[in-house]
């Protein structure tokens, strides 16, 4: 019974990680035509990504036409994620504090409403934003992408900071007020430092989701701006090419680093 459970669990983790392992392994496969048939080790696909000319037998395998496109997509993703994270963190945190500590009419309803953006399927939100922007006559641009991401990421930050706030003793703020601090000073000197791990965690999550968002961006990116996931989605739709493995491996690697960083930040907080 016990060993059956263990076996099942190990199979589960294999199921989760096998596909990622496949990508990493085949990103070093030299075979340009059928990338699933091992043909020797190569770093060519990585070199190709960074603009080095790759000598390959002429084949119908179409490589990235232009490294600049890839880098531009990455740059767009980073820009969007940076602004989105900043805005969503500020707005989400202020909502969490207002709902956690204030008292006002409709408080409960607002709390429930704030969960909706997380639960709304992204295709609905995506096309909604598309019609909305076009009906208002807004040009699809970086700005519309950032607004689009913020609509649901505010909620993610809100939920995480709220959870942290719920575990915080209100007496801390009462003590601060008792000692003569105004609400604003209490916010700055007591509440925000106490909430910092939650705020940081929320920001990290917002950044990761923004970097990874495909569906909403896909609808509202317009023609001039492409983020990394949309770019890869396009490549896959046009047919599977070996460079994708290399890009995917790099993305997996960076996500492991980010997740590790998040974990390390959390672990570092506890012993103190």
């Amino acid at each position, binding site marked *: 019974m016990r060993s059956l*459970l*263990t076996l*099942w*669990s190990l199979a*589960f*983790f294999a*199921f*989760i990680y096998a*596909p*990622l392992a*496949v*990508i990493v392994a*085949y990103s070093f496969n030299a075979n340009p035509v059928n*990338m*699933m*048939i091992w043909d020797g080790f190569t770093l060519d696909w990585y070199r190709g990504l960074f603009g080095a000319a790759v000598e390959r037998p002429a084949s119908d395998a179409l490589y990235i036409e232009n490294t600049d496109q890839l880098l531009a997509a990455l740059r767009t993703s980073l820009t969007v994620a940076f602004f989105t994270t900043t805005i969503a963190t500020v707005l*989400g945190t*202020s*909502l969490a504090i*207002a709902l956690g500590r*204030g008292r*006002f009419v409709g408080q409960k309803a*607002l709390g429930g*409403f704030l969960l*909706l*953006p997380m*639960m*709304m*399927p*992204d*295709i*609905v*939100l995506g*096309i*909604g*934003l598309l*019609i*909305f922007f076009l009906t208002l006559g807004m040009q699809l641009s970086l700005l519309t992408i950032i*607004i*689009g991401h913020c609509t*649901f990421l*505010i909620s993610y930050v809100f939920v995480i900071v709220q959870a942290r706030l719920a575990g915080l003793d209100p007496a801390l703020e009462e003590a601060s007020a008792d000692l003569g601090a105004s*609400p*604003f000073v209490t916010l700055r000197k007591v509440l925000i430092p106490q909430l910092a791990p939650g705020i940081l965690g929320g920001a990290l999550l917002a950044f990761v989701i923004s970097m*990874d968002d*495909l*569906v909403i961006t896909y*609808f509202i990116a317009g023609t001039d701006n492409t983020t990394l*996931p949309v770019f*890869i989605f396009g490549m*896959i739709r046009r047919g*599977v090419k070996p460079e*994708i493995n290399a890009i995917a491996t790099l*993305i*997996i690697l960076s*996500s*492991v680093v*980010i*997740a590790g960083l*998040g974990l390390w930040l959390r672990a570092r907080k506890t012993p103190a």
Partner: protein
Amino acid sequence: MRQSTFLAALLAPATLFLGVFFLGPLLIIAVFSLLTPGLYGGVEWSFYHQNYGRIFGWADGIMEIYEPVYLQILLRSLGFAALTVGLCLVICYPVAFWVARLPPRARLFCLFLVTLPFFSSLIVRLYAWLLILKPSGLLNQTLLATGLIQTPLEILYTQSAVVLGLVYVMVPFMFLPLYSAIDNLDRSMVEASMDLGANRVQTFTKVVLPQTLPGIIGGAVIVFIPSVGNFIVPDVLGGAKGLMVGNLVEQQFLSARNWPFGAALAMIVMGVVLATLLYASARARSAAHA
């Protein structure tokens, strides 16, 4: 600064932002779903109910033709989502149990392993399945090499591939609420049940399952909702046979250019989501009162 001014300063920007850019789009979908499609894309601002008629069967048959296929795809989406929920549950429950019994350090590590894929790109993970399921992909190569099959299996671009992809993407979302419910389960409950004479099966069905039900429902909801409206998974793995309602919506907006019809489809997805949420929160509330 007065307390209420302070509160308003915290609340106003975010509420205003979401009011405009979240509620606005949802409202405009509702409006568009009742407008007349324009001849060359776009809309004419006049009331029109046949967008829904095309789906549910009261189209006039001239301008708009009722096609049962839309309803079929809608039902298929619901079915896929339900199947995904069921499979995720069956897959995750034993694992969550196993992880909850590990020593603290190993437990943390396992949780990290489960959440890690969430941090890595969705599209990359689906792409991996594309590589594995292709006719010349890893799965077929392995099966052919071991002699288990003689001709390559056709998995990619089937409904199975879509469900497999959905399960793969959604599994962490089921795992976490299940794990937290099982981890919160007071072990003395299990001991009390056995102490009172219930065997392992009775203890599981009468105590463990009911006590972890909130986690099961929570996991089911957060897996079901994104699955219903998913369009990336069927797009990458499903092909024509695995279309879901999300693909229909996308087609109406980006290729067919029939926005009102797409909006009507999106409204239905939204309706399903809201109904699910209302059901779940009603359940949670009744559980809290019990």
